[in-house]
C-alpha cells in the first residue's frame, strides 16, 4: 500500500528522513518494501498486514503509528464543517439496511448545490502519489479522505435516485438475473451473495466494491449523497471473488474495518467537498448503526508479561508505550494495567496482542536470548527418514545420482502411459497444461528427467524417492516410492537391464532384506519379455523392465531405458533391523566346476533349482560364472558354467561323496534339460 512521505510530514513535523523512517517502520511496525520518487514527493510501498488495515491503511492512522514508535508529536488535521441550518438530511433521505449482519453501519450525509469541477493541484498530486487518478472534485474528495482515514467512501447523485420528496437507499442482497453497469461501463450479473446499495428500483452500487453508472456523479450533478459505511468483511471478500473486481475499497473492507471509522471520515469528506465544491451540507447525519460496539478494556499483568517474555522491561517504559499507542490506562494497580483499546485497533483482542505491542516498541532485537530451562532429552529417531537416507546412500555408492522432480504430470503424459485419467487425482486449478494431475507413478517424471539429461550425457543413472498419489474412496492415498532409471548410449542395453537388476540386488542386500526374486510380468509401459516384478518374502514390492519402444520414442528419441519402481514402505517392512550370526564353517569346502550346453530358452533359475534339488544335503551354493552363446556353439544353444560349492557341517567331505553328488546332478541335468556336459 502506497503512502506519501510529504502527506505524513503534514501531521508529523519531526518526521525523520525517509530512509531512517523506512528502517524504523520495518523494525517496529510494517515492512517498507519500496521507496520511490513521484514528482516532488517520495512514496513508500508498505506491506500492511491484513489485521492492521483498520487502523493504519490511512495516512492519519499510519502517522499515529509512526508517532508511537518514534515517540514524536502528532499534529491532527483540523477541518471546518458548516451545516446548513434550515434543511435536515433526514427529510430528504432514508437508509434501510435489510440485514444488520451484512452492513454493520451506514452513515450518510446529503449535500446540495455542489459545483462539480476539476480538483485543485494539491489534491491531484496527493492522489497521484498514492496511485489514484483524478476524476472530479467530488470523487477525488472521497478518495482523498479514504487515503487519509482508511475508510472507503462513495458519492451518489441524489437527483438520479428513484423517488420524489424523500428518497431511499436500501442495503440489500442482489437478486438473481439482476444486473448492474459499473462506473467503468462493465455489466456485472448479481446474485444473492453480492451485497448492493439500491434505490427503490435499481442497484446503484456493488456494496464496498464499486459504484454503478445509474447514480454516477457527472458534470451536471447538483445534489449528492455521501456514503460512509461498514460492510461484513467475508461478504465483501466473497463478492469480490465472484465478480472478480478488486478495488481500494474492497481490499480494505475484506480485511475488516472498525465501524468506528465512518463518522470522522464522513465529516472530513463533507467539509472538504464544502471547501472544494461550495456545497451546502444538510443538517444531521443519517447513521444506521444497529449493534453498537462496546468499549474494549483489557488487563495487562506485569508478572504474566515477564513470564511470557523471559526478561523484564521497566514498568515506566511499558506504561508509556501504551500511552504512545493511544491505549488509555483506565485503572492501575501495582501488578496490573487496565487499558482501553482504541476501537480501530481491531487486532488487539487479548493479552498476547498487548505483549506484541510492548515487545515491538521495545525492539525485539534488544530482547536477550536464553536457553530453555527444560531437560533436553535425546529426540526419538525418525526411522522413515533414516531408512530413506540409507537407500539414498547405497544408491549413490552404486553410481546413481539423486534427482528431484515435480509431483505433477500432464493429461497427455497419462494418455501416453495408458493410465486412465479418472484414476489420477486432478487439480481444480492447474497452473499450466503440463501440470494437471498428481503423479500416480514416479515413472513419468523419471522418464522425462532421463530424456532431458540425455541431451548432455551419454550415460544417465538416476533415482528419485518421492510420493505418488492414488485415488482412494475417502481421501487421496500417498505412497513413498523409489524410482531408478538407467540409459546408456555406450553399451548394449541387455547389459543395462542386468546392471539395474544388480543395483536392486545390492540395494536389498544392503537394506538387509531376504533374497529378491524377479518374475516375468506384462505391464503397459514396459517391453514384453523384458519386465519382471520384484519379490521379497513372497511380497511384490515393485517392478523392473525396459520402457516400451513406443514410450522410448515419444520421450527419449528411441534410446532404450531400463526402469524400476519400488514401494519404499514395503521395503522398510521387509528390511531387517537386526543381523544374525551364522557359525563359521568348521570343515573345508570343495569346489567343482561344471559347464553345460542347453537350449537358449531354458532359464538359468530353473537349472539352478534342479541342481539344488539333486543334492539337498551337501551342496552349499551354486554360482554362475559364465554364459556364452554364439560362435563355435550350435544355434539356439547356450553354455552355462557354474561353480558348485560343497560343504558339510560335521565332517570333511571326501572325493567319493562329492563325486557321487556330481553324478546325480549331471544325470538330472541331462534328464530334465537334455543338457550336454562339456
Amino acid at each position: 500500500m502506497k503512502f506519501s512521505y510529504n502527506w505524513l510530514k503534514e501531521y508529523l513535523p519531526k518526521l525523520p528522513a525517509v530512509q531512517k523512517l523506512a528502517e524504523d517502520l520495518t523494525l517496529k511496525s510494517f515492512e517498507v518494501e519500496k521507496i520511490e520518487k513521484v514528482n516532488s514527493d517520495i512514496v513508500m510501498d508498505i506491506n500492511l498486514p491484513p489485521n492492521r488495515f483498520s487502523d493504519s491503511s490511512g495516512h492519519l492512522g499510519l502517522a499515529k503509528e509512526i508517532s508511537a514508535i518514534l515517540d514524536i508529536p502528532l499534529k491532527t488535521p483540523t477541518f471546518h464543517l458548516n451545516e446548513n441550518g434550515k434543511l435536515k438530511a433526514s427529510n430528504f433521505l432514508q437508509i434501510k439496511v435489510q440485514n444488520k449482519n451484512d452492513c454493520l453501519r451506514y452513515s450518510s450525509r446529503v449535500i446540495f448545490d455542489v459545483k462539480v469541477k476539476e480538483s485543485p493541484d494539491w489534491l491531484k498530486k496527493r492522489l497521484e502519489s498514492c496511485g489514484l487518478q483524478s476524476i472530479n472534485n467530488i470523487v477525488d474528495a472521497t478518495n482523498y479522505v479514504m487515503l487519509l482515514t482508511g475508510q472507503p467512501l462513495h458519492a451518489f447523485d441524489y437527483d438520479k435516485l428513484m423517488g420524489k420528496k424523500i428518497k431511499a437507499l436500501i442495503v440489500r442482497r442482489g437478486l438473481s438475473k439482476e444486473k448492474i453497469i459499473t462506473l467503468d461501463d462493465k455489466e456485472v450479473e448479481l446474485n444473492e451473495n453480492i451485497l448492493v446499495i439500491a434505490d427503490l428500483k435499481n442497484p446503484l452500487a456493488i456494496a464496498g466494491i464499486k459504484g454503478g453508472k445509474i447514480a454516477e456523479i457527472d458534470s451536471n450533478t447538483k445534489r449528492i449523497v455521501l456514503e460512509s459505511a461498514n460492510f461484513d468483511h467475508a461478504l465483501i471478500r466473497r463478492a469480490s471473488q465472484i465478480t472478480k473486481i478488486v478495488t481500494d475499497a474492497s481490499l480494505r473492507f475484506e480485511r475488516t474495518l472498525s465501524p468506528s471509522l465512518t463518522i470522522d471520515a464522513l465529516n472530513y469528506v463533507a467539509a472538504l467537498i464544502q471547501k472544494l465544491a461550495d456545497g451546502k451540507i444538510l443538517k444531521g447525519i443519517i447513521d444506521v448503526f444497529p449493534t453498537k460496539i462496546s468499549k474494549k478494556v483489557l488487563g495487562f499483568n506485569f508478572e504474566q508479561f515477564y513470564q511470557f517474555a523471559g526478561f523484564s522491561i521497566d514498568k515506566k517504559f511499558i506504561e508509556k508505550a501504551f500511552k504512545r499507542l493511544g491505549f488509555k490506562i483506565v485503572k492501575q494497580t501495582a501488578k496490573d494495567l487496565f487499558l482501553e483499546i482504541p476501537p480501530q485497533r481491531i487486532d488487539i483482542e487479548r493479552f498476547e496482542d498487548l505483549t506484541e505491542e510492548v515487545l515491538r516498541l521495545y525492539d525485539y532485537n534488544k530482547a536477550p536470548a536464553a536457553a530453555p530451562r527444560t531437560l533436553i532429552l535425546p529426540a526419538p529417531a525418525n526411522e522413515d527418514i533414516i531408512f530413506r537416507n540409507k537407500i539414498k546412500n547405497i544408491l549413490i555408492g552404486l553410481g546413481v545420482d539423486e534427482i528431484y522432480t515435480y509431483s505433477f504430470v500432464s493429461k497427455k503424459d497419462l494418455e501416453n502411459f495408458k493410465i486412465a485419467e479418472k484414476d489420477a487425482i486432478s487439480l481444480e486449478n492447474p497452473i499450466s497444461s503440463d501440470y494437471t494431475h498428481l503423479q500416480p507413478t514416479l515413472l513419468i517424471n523419471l522418464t522425462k528427467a532421463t530424456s532431458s539429461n540425455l541431451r548432455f550425457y551419454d550415460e544417465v543413472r538416476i533415482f528419485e524417492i518421492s510420493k505418488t498419489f492414488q485415488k482412494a474412496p475417502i481421501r487421496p492415498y500417498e505412497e513413498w516410492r523409489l524410482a531408478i532409471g538407467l540409459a546408456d548410449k555406450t553399451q548394449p542395453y541387455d547389459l543395462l537391464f542386468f546392471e539395474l537388476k544388480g543395483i536392486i540386488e545390492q540395494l536389498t542386500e544392503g537394506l538387509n532384506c531376504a533374497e529378491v526374486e524377479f518374475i516375468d510380468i506384462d505391464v503397459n509401459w514396459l517391453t514384453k519379455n523384458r519386465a519382471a516384478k520384484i519379490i521379497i518374502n513372497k511380497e511384490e514390492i515393485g517392478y523392473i523392465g525396459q520402457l516400451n519402444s513406443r514410450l522410448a520414442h515419444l520421450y527419449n528419441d528411441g534410446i532404450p531405458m531400463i526402469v524400476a519402481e519400488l514401494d519404499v514402505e514395503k521395503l522398510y517392512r521387509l528390511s531387517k533391523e537386526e543381523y544374525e550370526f551364522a557359525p563359521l564353517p568348521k570343515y573345508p569346502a570343495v569346489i567343482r566346476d561344471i559347464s553345460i550346453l542347453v537350449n537358449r530358452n531354458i532359464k538359468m533359475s530353473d537349472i539352478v533349482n534342479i541342481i539344488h534339488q539333486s543334492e539337498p544335503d551337501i551342496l552349499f551354493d551354486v554360482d554362475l560364472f559364465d554364459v556364452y552363446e554364439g560362435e563355435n556353439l550350435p544355434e539356439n544353444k547356450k553354455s552355462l558354467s557354474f561353480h558348485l560349492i560343497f560343504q558339510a557341517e560335521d565332517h570333511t567331505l571326501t572325493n567319493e561323496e562329492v563325486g557321487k553328488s556330481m553324478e546325480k546332478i549331471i544325470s538330472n541335468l541331462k534328464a530334465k534339460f537334455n543338457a550336454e556336459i562339456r
Partner: protein
Amino acid sequence: MNIEEINQKVFQEIGECKDLQTLEKIRIKYLGRKGELTNILKSLKDLPVDQRKEIGPIANNLKKRIETALEEKRLFIIDNPELKPLDLSLPGKKLKRGHLHPFTTLENKIEEIFGNLGFEIVESDEVETEYYNFDALNIPADHPARDMWDTFWIKNDFQEKNKQKFLLRTHTSPIQVHYMETHQPPFRIVSPGRVYRYEAIDASHDIQFHQLECLMVDENITFANFKFIVLSFFQQLFSKKINVQFTPSYFPFVEPGVQINISCPRCNQKGCSLCKNTGWLEIAGAGMVHPNVFKAVGYNPKIWRGFAFGIGLERIAMIKYNIPDIRLFNSADLRFIKQF
C-alpha cells in the same frame, strides 16, 4: 656337484636371484631334503674318518654360509623390491559414484542440528484438508490472510463426496496440528516436507518447494527461549558469526509474529547482490504460538506456551551453496546435481 662346484654356483645364483620364490628354489636345490649339499652332508657318514674330518667342517661351514646368504638375500628382497617406476600423474581409476541432491545434503544437516537440540522429526501427508491447512491454524474461511497462501485445490471427484475440500498443503504447519492432536506437551518437533503454492514460476519462486518448521511447547517457554533456539540454529547452520534480526510480521497462527532475518553470510553485511545491499536476508517466519491454535487441538492456552518458526529449505540452500535459480532444484539436471 662337489663342494667346490656348489661353492662356486650357489652364491652366484643367490646373487642373481630377484624374488622370494626363486630364492626358495635355490634353498631347496642345495639345502632341501634331497639338496646338493644335503646329499654331501648325508654321505659324510659313509666316508673314511680322515676324509670325513677334512670335508665335514668345510661342508658344514658352507651350509652356514649359504644359510646366511639366503637370509641376507631374503631380507634384501623384502626391503628393496624392484618395481617398475609408475607415472603417478596418470588419472585414477574411474569408479562410479552417484551424487546426492544438494537439497538432501542440506536437509540431513538441518535435521542433525535439530536432533542435537532435542527436536523430534515428524512428517505427514502432502494432500491436506482445508481444515488442517487453514482453519486449525486460526485462518478461517473468508479470512483475507488466506491470500498469503496461493493454493492448489484438488478436484473433488472421489467416490464418496467429501465435506472437506482437499488441497496441496501450502506450508508444513498442518504437520504440527496432526502431531498436537495426538500428543501431549511438553515436546519439541521439527516437521520438514514438500509444500505447494499456486504462483508464477521464476528464479526465486517455484510451485513446489520444501519447508521445515520447528515447534516447541512447554509450560515455561519464553520469547527469550525462542530467540535462543533461533540463534543456535542459524549459527550452527551458517557460522558463529551470523547475526539474527527480528522484525514484526503477521501470521495468524502466532502472536507476536515476527520475521527472522540473518546477516548476509556472503558479504558479512558489507552489501552484495544477494542481500540487495541491505546486509540482511529474510529467512524465516516465526512467533509465539497463537492461543487459538492451542484451543483447536484441545490444549489449555493458559498452561502451555510455545514458539514456532518455519524456513524455506531451497532458499537456505541457495544462500549456502550460492545457487542463483530456485528452478534448478526440480530440474533433475545432472549438470547441477553432479556438482554436489
